[in-house]
Every structure is written in structure tokens, then in C-alpha cells.
């Protein structure tokens, strides 16, 4: 570990949205976590080809998306916002393209800053193309180099925040989800994932320091959100997805150990734990990201958020305007409401936070584990572990315990057929050896996932 995080930094009274212990401030004055919750707008291309010949059209899409959204933000007196450029694969495989998109989007944002005093920042998120079948190693080679080049040149082209949805460990974790294999999941998140995060975020932080940008953080999207989406369709148990969310905390925390300072990425709902443990600001998404995926955490996700995101929406024409503009408006109103409470005073903030929390937490175990009180409690449990591996196991066990108690106290709805899973998962976790090397060996030998190649991790 670089930085060490060993204690929970908030009590329940100070753990609120819009305010974090260590706000992040850009040169233009935009501050995240400094008091206000702000929109983070995300957008993507409509159904279209992305290649050499369509690239001018692609650029025009991005330009017009951000232009119209900024226009609406000004009209609604939005006090500041973040735009995320989450690159598509094509724009990552060809870094020039990703960099050009970044530049064009940022230019429009500067324009609105100058003409209309609309402060904003740009989060740049390349695809983690190390997942490519041809990628031979996690930490060097063509794919690694491309990602690093995008970060470096993207930073020069105007990116403010560097992020990625990294996939170290996902090679075993995809299968873990499909088979609800919690041991494999812990291997993916608590061993491979953490190993990879360390290398990856060490490098990203270096680039951020060199370029004067912000090393913002990751998300366990490919792990916990995949599980959430599958659970939402009834494909896997919700309690399994809830436990995965908590397991993911340790992995996502590694970015901060390696120097990231936030805001944590929107789709990483484990961000609430990151905030509790590191004091950095976080981005979250909920009901207003239904455009990107339905979820059981529509309101509760906002309870302690510093940025409020729509995750992603295609540039389609809705009756009211282009979809990204429509979502800018929705985010703006959500944030307005929350900031009005802040203006009214701390007790209004606490009430609103608790309403957001209580409105969801009963209906789904995945919502329950995002309750601010539960987050503080579980964070303390997690931090008792001495290393990533132990922390991940503790995270799982503590989450199971808390869910079982809540179920017994009728504080959370768990369907009957899911209840036995709590014991099953616990037994599985308890059967994991204490020594990480023994465990690793065991998992490598018993591996059934065709995607996983130990030597990519120098194993």
C-alpha cells in the first residue's frame, strides 16, 4: 500500500451529500465535495458506425451534445458540472480519436465558461482494452501503452479528471457471477483486482501529477454492476449482488492508496464506502441513470453523493430535446433540491438524506448495503483486515451478517428463495484459506475460466 487507510472518517451526522472532508478543486474554481452537489453528465453515440469515414460525424455528435447540454445548464443556472467522456472502444484503440474527442468537448466547455461563467470539468474515461483477447500482459505492451497515452495526451487536450473502469480480475469474475461462486469472486476482486489496481493507479497518478490533472478513481462496474444488472432481471440472487458490492470496496479503495483523490466514478456504487474511508468526494448515479440501466437504488444512491450522474444516454431526439440535454435538466433539478436543503441548514440536509435512504433501503439488499449507517458500520469491519485479501473476506462476511440481521429485524425485504444463500455464501467464504498464496495457487489450479491467464499478472 502507498497511502494507508485505517479508520472511518465520518460519524453519521457529518456523512452527507455535497460535502466531503477533502474536496477536489480545479484551477477554474470548480469544487467537488465542497458544499454543493453538482451534475455529472454522461452521454454516448446513437446507433452508428464509428470509423475513419464517419469520424467527422462522430465529432459533430460530441460537439453538439455538449453544446446543447451546456446551453441548458446556463438556462437553469446550474452552478457547475462535470462532463464525462467515456470513450467507446474505437476511440481507445485509436488514441488520436479519443484525444480529439476530448479536445472538442473541452473547448465547448471552456467557451461556456468564458461567455456564461458556467464552470465545469471533464472526466476522461478510456476503455480498459487490456481485456482484448490479444492483450498479452496487464502492465505492459501495446494495450497498456495506448491507455496511458490517452491519459497523458487527453490531459493535455483538456481533461481534468482521469478515470477508468478497470478490469483486472474480471477474467475470473465474469464466471464467478454466472455461477454465483463467491470464492472465485473474492479471488477476482480481492487478489487479482487489487494487484492490478495497484499497478494501474500508480501509473495513472503519476500521469496526473505530471500533467497537473486529477487522479480521480475507478469503479467496480464490471464486477458489481454486472451482478446488479443480472440480479435485477432475476438471474442471480440479489443478496449475492449485494455482497459483491461490498467486496468491491477493497478493490476500488486501492486507487486511493495509490494516490487518487476523487471524485470516485459514478457507476461505482461502492463509492459511498470510499467516501467514508478516504474522505474524498464521490460521484453516484441513481434514478436519473435509469436511461442507462434500471436499478434498485434510485434514491439511496444520492444520500451521500458529491456528483450526481446519469451514467450514459444515447444522443437520441426525445420530444423535449436531445436526450443528453433532457438528462442535464433532470440532474440539475435533482441537485437543486438537495442544494436548497443545504442552504436551509444541516437538519434539512439530514432529513433529506434520510428520506432518500429510507425510501429505498427496505426493498432490496443492494439498497440496504448503501445505507449511510450501514456503510459506516461495515467500513469499520472491513478496515480491521490487515491486507487486501483479508479485508475482502471480512467485507463479505460482514455484509452477510448485516443482511441476515436486517432480514430478521424486517428491515429489508429478502425473498424466501434467497435466504438460504446467505448461509451458503458464508460457508464458502469461511472455507477460504488464510494464506493468500495458498488460495491463489488453489484458484489457479482449479480455474475453469478460459479467459484467465495467470502469466498476464506475472503469476
Amino acid at each position, binding site marked *: 500500500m502507498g497511502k494507508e487507510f485505517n479508520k472511518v472518517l465520518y460519524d453519521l451526522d457529518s456523512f452527507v451529500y455535497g460535502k466531503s472532508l477533502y474536496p477536489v478543486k480545479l484551477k477554474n474554481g470548480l469544487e467537488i465535495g465542497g458544499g454543493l452537489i453538482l451534475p455529472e453528465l454522461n452521454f*454516448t*453515440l*446513437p*446507433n*452508428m*458506425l*464509428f470509423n475513419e469515414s464517419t469520424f467527422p460525424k462522430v465529432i459533430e455528435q460530441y460537439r453538439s451534445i455538449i453544446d446543447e447540454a451546456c446551453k441548458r445548464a446556463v438556462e437553469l443556472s446550474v452552478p457547475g458540472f462535470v462532463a464525462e467522456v467515456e470513450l*467507446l*472502444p*474505437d476511440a481507445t484503440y485509436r488514441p488520436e480519436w479519443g484525444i480529439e474527442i476530448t479536445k472538442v468537448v473541452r473547448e465547448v466547455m471552456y467557451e461556456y465558461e468564458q461567455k456564461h461563467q458556467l464552470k465545469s470539468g471533464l472526466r476522461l474515461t478510456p476503455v480498459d482494452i487490456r*481485456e*482484448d*483477447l490479444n492483450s498479452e500482459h496487464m502492465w505492459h505492451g501495446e494495450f497498456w501503452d495506448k491507455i496511458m497515452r490517452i491519459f497523458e495526451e487527453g490531459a493535455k487536450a483538456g481533461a481534468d479528471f482521469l478515470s477508468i473502469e478497470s478490469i483486472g480480475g474480471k477474467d475470473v469474475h*465474469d464466471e464467478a*457471477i*454466472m*455461477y*454465483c*461462486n463467491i470464492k472465485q469472486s473474492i479471488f477476482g476482486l480481492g487478489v487479482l483486482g487489487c494487484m492490478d489496481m495497484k499497478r494501474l493507479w500508480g501509473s495513472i497518478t503519476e500521469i496526473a501529477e505530471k500533467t497537473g490533472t486529477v487522479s480521480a478513481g475507478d469503479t467496480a462496474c464490471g464486477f458489481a454492476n*454486472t451482478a446488479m444488472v*443480472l440480479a435485477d*432481471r*432475476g*438471474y*442471480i*440472487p440479489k443478496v449475492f449482488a449485494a455482497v459483491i458490492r461490498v467486496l468491491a470496496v477493497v478493490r476500488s479503495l486501492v486507487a486511493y492508496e495509490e494516490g487518487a483523490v476523487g471524485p470516485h466514478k459514478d457507476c461505482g456504487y461502492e463509492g459511498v464506502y470510499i467516501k467514508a474511508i478516504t474522505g474524498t468526494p464521490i460521484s453516484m448515479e441513481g434514478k436519473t441513470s435509469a436511461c442507462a440501466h434500471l436499478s434498485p437504488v434510485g434514491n439511496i444512491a444520492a444520500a451521500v453523493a458529491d456528483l450526481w450522474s446519469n451514467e450514459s444516454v*444515447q444522443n437520441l431526439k426525445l420530444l423535449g430535446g436531445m436526450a443528453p440535454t433532457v438528462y442535464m435538466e433532470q440532474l440539475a433539478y435533482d441537485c437543486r433540491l438537495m442544494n436548497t436543503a443545504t442552504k436551509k441548514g444541516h437538519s434539512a440536509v439530514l432529513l433529506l438524506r434520510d428520506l432518500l435512504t429510507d425510501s429505498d433501503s427496505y426493498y432490496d439488499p443492494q439498497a440496504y448495503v448503501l445505507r449511510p449507517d450501514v456503510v459506516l458500520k461495515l467500513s469499520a469491519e472491513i478496515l480491521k483486515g490487515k491486507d487486501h485479501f483479508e479485508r475482502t473476506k471480512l467485507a463479505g462476511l460482514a455484509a452477510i451478517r448485516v443482511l441476515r440481521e436486517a432480514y430478521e429485524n424486517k428491515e429489508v425485504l429478502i425473498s424466501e*428463495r434467497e435466504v438460504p444463500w446467505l448461509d451458503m455464501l458464508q460457508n464458502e467464504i469461511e472455507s477460504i484459506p488464510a494464506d493468500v498464496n495458498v488460495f491463489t495457487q488453489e484458484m489457479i489450479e482449479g480455474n475453469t475460466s478460459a479467459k484467465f491467464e495467470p502469466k498476464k499478472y506475472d503469476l
Partner: protein
Amino acid sequence: MQELLNKIAIGIEKGNKKAVLEDVQAALDANIKVESIMNDGLIKGMEELGAKWKRNEVFVPEVLIAARTLTAALEAIKPILAQQGVKPKGKAVIGTVKGDLHDIGKNLVKMMMVGAGFEVVDLGVDVSEAKFIEALEENQPDILLLSALLTTTMPQQKAVIDAITAAQLRDKVKIMVGGAPVTQEFADEIGADAYTQDAASAAERAVKFVS
């Protein structure tokens, strides 16, 4: 006899490989027709599980384990099937198109296809037009399934279909497309034979194509 077939079906549902293999052997010993073992035992068990899945009564892992069991059992009786000239319900090739690495949806579709009695060749993710054509030529499948999860790889489904047409293989195979951003309209537009919203209905539709 019925009892034994039922036992096989239940074994599949439970994903109990050892028991199923034993029961299949017992059935063969009892001179039950291998076609009946396959259809009224193995696939019936899988169908029942699939129906439960559609009613949200079981989770994917259970279906996957059953599918694995089914595959093992079919493997075991393959020589006899071949010898008696019994063919699988159909053959299918599946893959996620070029530029797209999402595979969970595709894997679920594959699982349901296997469960419906298809022999399935999985080309994996990021599959080019050329690879699809190669697989068509090699495997002569009844059905080709294309998955795409990105708005920018959906058009790649069209590219594959166009390439197949150009290779004069279009009338030899039914093409199904799917994935989160895909719609029926899009499927019609690009000349696919079918689109369905989820894995269970994909397999149902595929069965209609071969029966």
C-alpha cells in the same frame, strides 16, 4: 421406463452429473430408445428447468450447471446417437461481433440453446465477418446468433449479414440478432430472420426455425 426417464429429467434439473450418467446407462441397458432418452429425459429436464427460470423460480447458476450436465450426458451417448442416425435438434453458431467484448448475454443465450437441444459452437467475442463465415462453412449450422451490446457495434451485425450474403451463404442459415440496444426494427432493417429480447425466447424462437 417412464420412471427412469423422469429420474433422468430430474437429475438434469438438479445438475447431478453422476446420477444422470448412471441413469442414462441404465436406460440404455433397459433397451429404452436413445432418441427417447434424449428427448423425454435429458432435454425434457432441461426444458422444465428453463420454464422455471422464465417464471423466476431458479437462478442462472442452476441452469448453467444443468446445461453442463446435459452436455456431458449428450457427449456420452453421442456414438450411439450417431450410429442410430439420431440427429441433435439443430446446430447453431454464436458469437459477439467485432469490436464488442460483452459476453454475458451471449453466454446466457448459448446456455438456453444448449438446453433446448442444440449443438452450439461458440466463437467467443470480438468475432470478425471472416471468422463467422469460416464457422458457417465448417459447421453448416441451422442458425447463426449474433450478439452486440454497443450502439457502435450494432452496425457490425449488418456487416456480418452483408458478408454472408456476399459469400452466397445467406439462404443456408437463419440469422438471429440480439443484445441490449438491438430492436425488432433494426433486425428487420438489416435483414435478420429474427430478434428476441432475452435468452429464453431466443431458444424458443430457434426451435421454431428447425421444427
